[in-house]
């Protein structure tokens, strides 16, 4: 048995190696072959081509993240129609069925952003700003959008770049430009770390929520600088589909009765210490 996983990343996002590890661990536990891949340009059409080439190698199952159902749908549908079982992961819950996938494991970005926003409002936030390191990355924009949907405000997002120094200086600049901002969402862990430094510099009282985890982010949560980070428990997004596909292929089409929501989970002061060792590895 051979399973192929393809996800959307330019290869630099620390989120995905955890998913990949989930898949690899599952494959090893079960005793099957596993391959992971991504289109380094980040362009959805390139990813569609990649899905097609994966289908051409005739694997026993495909695991695909689905940030853009229109762009990827054709390739996935064709694979499914040619008899390859497909499971979608991460984003794309809404379209999973329509592209011909068996099921979806993950968490829609908007929903995760929404959860983060709801809690921020509950914890006293009034005016928010979203820090996005790749303003053209739709998955990341969705998080910001979800967050603002929950707060009932117009989307207010800035492109902080991927340069850690500029993330900090741009965040500080934006906070000074509008002193009423009291809550921030950082949609990536390196953005989270730099934003925390910026908040300190400006000397403001700011509710900072983040996405994903690194040891640095955990430390910030423990120190009280970051309120919480959204944990999609993406290890599940890698592990589960391999297990499910294996059972599907070897047990006469055995399938769970519904999609598996892997998150959103919150990591905050209450559980930070517990997940610390796993941050960036299996969480």
């Amino acid at each position, binding site marked *: 048995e051979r399973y192929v996983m393809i996800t959307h990343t330019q290869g630099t996002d620390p989120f995905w190696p955890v998913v990949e590890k989930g898949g690899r661990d599952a494959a090893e536990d079960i005793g099957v072959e596993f391959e992971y*891949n*991504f289109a380094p340009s980040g362009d*959805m059409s390139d990813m569609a081509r*990649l899905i097609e*080439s994966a289908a051409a*190698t005739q694997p026993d199952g495909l695991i695909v993240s689905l940030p853009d159902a229109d*762009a990827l749908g054709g390739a996935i549908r064709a694979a499914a*129609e040619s008899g390859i079982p497909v499971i979608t992961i991460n984003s794309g819950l809404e379209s999973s069925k329509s592209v011909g996938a068996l099921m979806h494991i993950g968490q829609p970005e908007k929903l995760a952003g929404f959860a983060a926003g709801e809690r921020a409002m509950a914890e006293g936030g009034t005016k928010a700003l979203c820090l996005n390191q790749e303003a*053209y990355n*739709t998955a990341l924009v969705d998080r910001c959008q979800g967050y603002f949907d929950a707060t009932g405000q117009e989307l207010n997002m800035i492109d902080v770049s991927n340069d850690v120094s500029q993330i900090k200086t741009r965040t500080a600049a934006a906070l000074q430009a509008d002193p009423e901002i009291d809550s921030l969402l950082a949609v990536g862990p390196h953005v989270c770390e730099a934003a925390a430094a910026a908040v300190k510099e400006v000397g403001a009282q700011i509710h900072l929520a983040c996405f994903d985890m690194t040891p640095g982010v955990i430390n910030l949560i423990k120190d009280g600088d970051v309120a919480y980070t959204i944990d999609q428990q993406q290890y599940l997004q890698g592990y589960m589909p391999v297990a499910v596909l294996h059972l599907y292929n070897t047990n006469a089409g055995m399938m769970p009765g519904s999609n598996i929501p892997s998150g959103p989970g919150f990591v905050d002061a209450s559980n930070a210490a517990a997940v610390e060792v796993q941050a960036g590895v299996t969480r």
Partner: protein
Amino acid sequence: MSDTTKNSAERKEADRLQSGGLLSVLKRRPEAGSFLVMLVAVIVISFASNGNAFNPLGLKNNFTVISQFGIIATGACLLMIAGDFDLSIGSMIGFAGMSMAMMLKWGLPFGLGAATPFTAFLLTLVMTLAIGWLIGTIVVRSKLSSFIVSLAFLFFLRGVTEVSFRLINQSTQISGLQDFKETSWFAAMFGGQALGWFYDTWFALGGNINRAGNQWVTGFDARFLWWVGLSLVAYIVLSRTQAGNWIFATGDNSESARANGVPVDKVRISLFMFTAFCATLFAACQVFDTNTADAAKGNLKELEAIAIAVVGGTLMTGGFGSVIGIVFGAITFGLVANAVFFIPSIDGSYYRVFVGVVLLTAVFLNESVRKRITGGL
């Protein structure tokens, strides 16, 4: 004392030149280097993928990727032969994709009503050609290096694309468009399939069967045909027409070309428009295939286009290159981009490593070929 003076009347200029055999003639084709690199890529990938890379779907898929590379590299190549660069190709792809998808979703600008695939494409093409014209005109008039002018447009066009997405569309991605290629022959021309007979025949001969027992692949992507057509036209224009001679002349020594009556400025501006056309074609094939566009589309494609042109034997400084070389270069690059798939032990992060290695190798080979042809210029 006068030295003895040898009589040299019998010696001829030709005596100074060693001549070689057939192999050395072949080695002197400008495409020799890129052909060799391609050969290695094809052989390695055939073996490493157990032939999967060339099974029905693999073949189709490889040619889709190759065609995309080929389309933009052809534009980059002709422009480079004329001595210019266009770093805005990638951003132009993003801009064109955004423009078409946005019109299809929100209607034509200036209240011109709903868009059809045809009007969306046409209006977009008018805009991109105008931008190409603008870039070319700035380069020609200002005498600034095209590298820097098009670098400004790399930033500018990507920025405009992002801003438009966010202001007009409120999202960096457009989705939920109908599948135009089902209803419009024009959309199908770009986003549909072509050469179905090839796969039908393959099926009839007993191959091309999927796991469900049906015909697996039904045709190549339409962009394959566009690429073949574009390459053919570019080949003829470049090597057999007056325009082709002007392109070479402009890139080799534009002052001399101008002084001899070649309309150097027009040639250069036209070629900037041609790369804009190639970028638009690229975007149209993707938009009408997937019915989406996003702000990242085409990211960094300009560097790949230039890399392929160079792998294909185009000289960075202009005046030398061949469309056949670009075909080989696109095949090599397409295979390498997909190789990560057909070779299980590597993943996408190796792509850039390979690209670097292929680029350097090809360029070395090409250089030695070129020296042989041009006498070391």
